[in-house]
């Protein structure tokens, strides 16, 4: 199938905690030609399940297929295609200590973050915001010659 209308979508997949469940999911995406823009996974507190958040893109029809195919996997408990959700992504960024630290601190505060570590040569900030705003943060951060930026991937929760 040719997947045309590319709209960004976020789905949450609730899975049983067992080895290779993540492989089953990523292999399914690869085998059927679905796209993964970002993927995060973590155990759900006090349960035997994990929450996987996948950001992908495609038409509504494709999303329906992805949801159904995911559901077919034996350890997949629930698939939620989000309509109304809160979406956040966390980012860590490292800057040379010689940069304007006040500016960097203000910048990260503007994106729900702040300085998390200061070393002899480097300063590390953390921000957490909506994926769109994260893009802006990364653009803005370029001015201060970041040595490294690590994105955490999207997590989402139904409103």
């Amino acid at each position: 199938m040719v997947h045309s209308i590319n709209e960004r979508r976020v789905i949450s997949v609730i899975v049983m905690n067992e080895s290779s469940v993540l492989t089953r999911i990523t292999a399914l995406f690869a085998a059927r030609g679905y796209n993964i823009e970002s993927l995060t996974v973590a155990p759900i507190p006090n349960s035997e399940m994990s929450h996987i958040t996948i950001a992908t893109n495609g038409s509504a029809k494709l999303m329906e297929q992805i949801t159904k195919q995911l559901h077919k996997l034996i350890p997949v408990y629930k698939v939620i295609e989000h309509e109304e959700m809160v979406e956040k992504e966390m980012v860590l960024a490292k800057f040379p200590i010689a940069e304007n630290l006040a500016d960097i601190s203000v910048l990260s505060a503007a994106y729900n973050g702040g300085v998390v570590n200061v070393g002899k040569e480097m300063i590390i900030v953390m921000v957490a915001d909506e994926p769109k705003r994260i893009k802006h943060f990364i653009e803005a951060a370029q001015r201060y010659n970041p040595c490294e930026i690590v994105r955490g991937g999207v997590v989402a929760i139904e409103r």
Partner: protein
Amino acid sequence: MGQMSGAQMVCEAIIAEGVKTVFGYPGGAIMHVYDEIYKQNGFEHILNRHEQAAVHAADGYARATGEVGVAMVTSGPGFTNAVTGLATAYMDSIPLIVISGQVPLSLIGTDGFQEIDAVGISRPCTKHNFLVRSIEELPRVLKEAFYIARSGRPGPVLVDIPKDITVDIGEFIYPDSVNIPSYKPTYKGNKRQIEKAVEAIKKSKKPLLYIGGGAVLSGAYALIRELAKKTQIPVVETLMARGVMGADNPLLLGMLGMHGNYASNMAMSETDLVISLGARFDDRVTGKLSEFAKYADIIHVDIDAANIGKLVDVDYPIVGDVTEVLEAMLPQLDDVDTDRYEAWRNILKRYDELHPQSYVDSDEVIKPQWAIERVGELVGEDAIITSDVGQHQMWAAQHYPFDRPRQWINSGGLGTMGFGFPAALGAKRAFPDKTVINVTGDGSILMNMQELVTAAEYKIPVINLILNNHFLGMVRQWQTFFYEKRYSETDLSFQPNWKALAEACGGIGYDVTTKAEFDAALKDAIAQDKVCFMNVAVNRFEDVLPMVPAGGALFNMMLPQTTKGDA
């Protein structure tokens, strides 16, 4: 049941599940299990001569009986040989358990001798798979494997067991139920959707029942016949559904798709309501999607929600088991007006008269279609017919008078050459009193011919009817039509001595070139209790017709010469 080794647990689970025959091939990593097989007498083990054949045999057993088939292989090459078998079963949703040995837990990930990532390789061609990690979880895993294989949309399940776990001792309590919170197949169709579908049937003028392999798996044939009878709605079957309606049923138009008959394909092209029961709109069935059932609303009943809306847009989606959905639907159709569809039935009848399924017979050479029809006349409903893949498969599907489901066993989804002979062994083992005939080709049969030895050793007298065209005929047909007759690597003029080959392995051979010889050989083969090769020389350049070229619209068929005019 107390303390026992992992190997014993495997045997106990197989016995508890009621499996009578296991097919397999031993090797280092599975030897402890084989040692326990030696000691028990709850089931028999058949030593096929190749792991692929063992899996196909278990698959044939499953298709013939509707029960779960079991095959057992060792790690590494034993497992990789089994992969084609798994994929074949997967594509046709056949309930199957493959138990594979694995290197000991401590060696996993070290490139140990005969180590291969079996769960990794089999992930895309199994319904589910397990790498067993401890003796404690083994009983539960075995129970879940059987449950997953046979429930919902059935499919093959691999259980990969590291060698040390087969030696470990643990407590064996075979669970009598399964609880997998994340796996709850839907059997009952949505009530409201079913009501809407019934309304649509009552309103339509040109409805068509489209029956797929799911109807066989669901055991729904009696209900489908009842539905057709009650409503007088015409029926088309897919390759996988042959036998559901029964060849004599006046409402059966035939098989649709690439090699479907004229009336069936036209019916699908002109219907205003497709009632799909356990079919999945495979590309070999639909042809060009944009032209497929263009004027129709679609009711799609399928136990696998992912099949619904995957290829065509569906107006009445019903997720559920065909049997349960029909049980709910049938009483609501008591007042259906069967006259409503009469004009439609007449149109289709005329189509069938215009271009019936036909071929030009000959007195000089045996036509493959004649051979199939002749088998039908001589053994008919008594036989189980398996097949390999190619022209012979299509002729069997078109011309054999199947009159019950599970009488026709073939690899539809994957199209695996080499499937037919071992599948026939499985079917024959399950039904020793039935004549089992593998309709095969001179190409396909060689892909598992070592099974002659298995069949001879265990006295499993199946008949391999080789429709010998000295070609990889189906590929040759495409070369004729689409590659300007450049017969690249399809000429099988160099042939073995079939009779001698069969005899060398403990079977019998027949070389047949005339119709008289054909009858004599078939009758003799049925009377003998030995496996045989019945090598039938057929017309070399015979084509399978009608044919819808790949990607073409269903109504654009190449038709046989006997019929007049153009479609």
